[in-house]
């Protein structure tokens, strides 16, 4: 079987454009030739994963100028959350991103918990970890299916959506909704884990490793896939760090960095998993990182199923957490607490925190500022998609227009999260 020829690997020095790191400017002497064609790509284009606009300047097929324009999906999440109580602000966090909703929800909930200083029971911690890893698999599956589709491989899409549907079924079991489950509550989980969940989840863990092998069989020796991904969209480790890249993009560039290992949150220090790192910093390596991460996440899910502790699923703090339903009929205090929590919400002590989690796309951070009142003073999200798109100009230096689809796709961005 023919394998694609080796292209030049990772480069020396920096390729970040100057003076504007995110804009590739056409050199003056090239501009004078009057041969530059400006092409507007997007904002509505099927292969930009949403509404991303790229203004590309071409010299023949070669990209000589590039500017990414975002903001078409700006929804004002951060502003809206300032007018909601802490509790009612939770559903906003996951809705920014239709693929990694649980990781986003987790970052917000953990930030509120950090300000409150509330302890989360172990069962909730492990269940959060389990769901976040399922969510990572879910996000990577959609990424793989759509990215392959954009490069002309239609079959993987059907295979990945087969497994994605199983994950959505699991989400539906816990939260009632297939996406944006809003299952994480300040203090723990919104509900107990439903009966039947573990069995279904175990069956998924048995199926998933074989399914990843199947996807690789479809793509790994596909000559078109190899030629369009190997040596394309190069990013060195130094440039990736300077541009603030995180997640699979950073790991594809040879940096062994994962917040789950570097600063373990939830119960990541109690499970075994490896961080896949690749050295070449091209689209192929980012693809490989995604594939290996799906295997590792499945490993974590299986361990979380085995190690899931029993007990309460939410903290017992009546000033923050709703009282058990049955107490409302017998206890006056519980009724008062319930009423106060539902109408006015709880207060969060004055202060500011920054909490970062390893979302499927990289470092997802939540900065919270509270004035001690029932509503957030300021909510700010560090969106990995936003940062990833800054690297487009570096990735596309001297590349061909056809490589752009592969390179931008490999950044794994979701525009809703990018524009917030």
């Amino acid at each position, binding site marked *: 079987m023919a394998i694609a020829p080796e292209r030049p690997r990772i480069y020396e020095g920096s390729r*970040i454009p100057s003076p*504007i*790191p*995110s*804009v590739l400017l056409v050199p003056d002497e090239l501009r004078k030739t009057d041969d530059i064609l400006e092409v507007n790509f997007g904002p509505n284009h099927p292969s930009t994963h949403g509404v991303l606009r790229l203004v590309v300047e071409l010299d023949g097929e070669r990209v000589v100028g590039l500017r990414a324009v*975002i*903001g078409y999906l*700006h929804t*004002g999440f*951060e*502003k*809206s959350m300032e*007018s*909601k*109580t802490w509790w*009612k602000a939770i559903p906003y966090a996951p809705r920014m991103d239709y693929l990694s909703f649980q990781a986003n929800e987790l970052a917000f909930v953990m930030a509120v918990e*950090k*300000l409150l200083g509330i302890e989360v029971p172990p069962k909730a911690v492990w269940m959060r970890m389990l769901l976040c890893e399922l969510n990572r698999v879910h996000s990577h599956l959609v990424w793989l299916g759509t990215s392959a589709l954009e490069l002309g491989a239609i079959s993987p899409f059907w295979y990945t959506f087969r497994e994605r549907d199983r994950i959505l079924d699991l989400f539906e079991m816990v939260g009632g909704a297939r996406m944006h489950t809003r299952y994480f509550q300040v203090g723990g989980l919104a509900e107990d884990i439903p009966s039947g969940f573990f069995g279904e989840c175990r069956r998924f863990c048995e199926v998933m490793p074989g399914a990843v092998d199947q996807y690789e069989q479809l793509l790994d020796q596909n000559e078109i896939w190899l030629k369009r991904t190997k040596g394309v969209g190069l990013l060195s*480790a130094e440039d990736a*760090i*300077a*541009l*603030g890249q995180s997640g699979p993009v950073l790991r594809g560039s*040879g*940096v*062994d*960095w994962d*917040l789950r*290992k*570097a*600063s373990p949150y939830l119960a990541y220090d109690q499970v075994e998993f490896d961080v896949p790192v690749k050295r070449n910093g091209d689209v192929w390596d980012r693809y490989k990182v995604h594939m290996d991460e799906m295997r590792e996440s499945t490993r974590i899910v299986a361990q979380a199923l085995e190690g899931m502790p029993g007990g309460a699923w939410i903290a017992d703090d009546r000033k923050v957490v709703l009282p058990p339903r049955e107490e409302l009929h017998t206890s006056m205090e519980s009724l008062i607490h319930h009423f106060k929590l539902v*109408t*006015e*919400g709880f*207060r969060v002590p*004055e*202060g*500011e*925190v*920054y909490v*970062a989690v390893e979302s499927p796309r990289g*470092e997802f*951070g939540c*900065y919270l*500022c509270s*004035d*001690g*009142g*029932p*509503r957030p*003073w*300021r909510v*700010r999200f*560090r969106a990995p998609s*936003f*940062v990833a*798109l*800054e690297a487009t100009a570096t990735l596309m230096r001297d590349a061909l227009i056809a490589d752009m689809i592969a390179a931008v796709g490999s950044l794994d961005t979701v525009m809703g999260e990018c*524009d*917030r």
Partner: protein
Amino acid sequence: MSYAGVPGLVESREAHGETTLVVDPARLVEAAEHLRDELGFNFLSDVSSVDYLGWSDEPVAGSWGDSSGRDLNSPGSWGLARRPAPKPKRFAVNYHLLRLVSGAREAPRVRMQVWVDDAELVPSVVGVWPTADWHEREVFDMMGIRFSGHPNLVRILMDDDWEGHPLRKDYPIGGEPVRFSGEE
């Protein structure tokens, strides 16, 4: 970790296990270079800004109200238990820094903070961390804080001809005009 050598350091405080270094805006770039080169904070996670307009305002009758007062018909406008400590200026810009070492099993973070009033300039750190490019554009777009020395300080999320800066506290929700088709 000692931050005593950071140029222009005004105040250093610890809360919730996080370190905040308040830095003089005039020496921000020096401080940023010191933090990157001497202390190894090579990764800029995020630049965020906060508008403290109305923070710690005089209370309304009966309780410490927030800036919009206490409205009994509006749940969630519960007054504050105590008045928050006043802030030195209207805006804070926070730089969330991380020391990222490949293979390291620790993630030290520090928050560099500068305080400015309306129309005061903040020096740009694009030269120190290129990733600040879009972050600073977003702060400008959303808060109206201008960065001196930024190579391309234009709006990023809102339209180029947008008026106002939406995340300011005096920018109302629902305040934007709604355009209808067929309207002149």
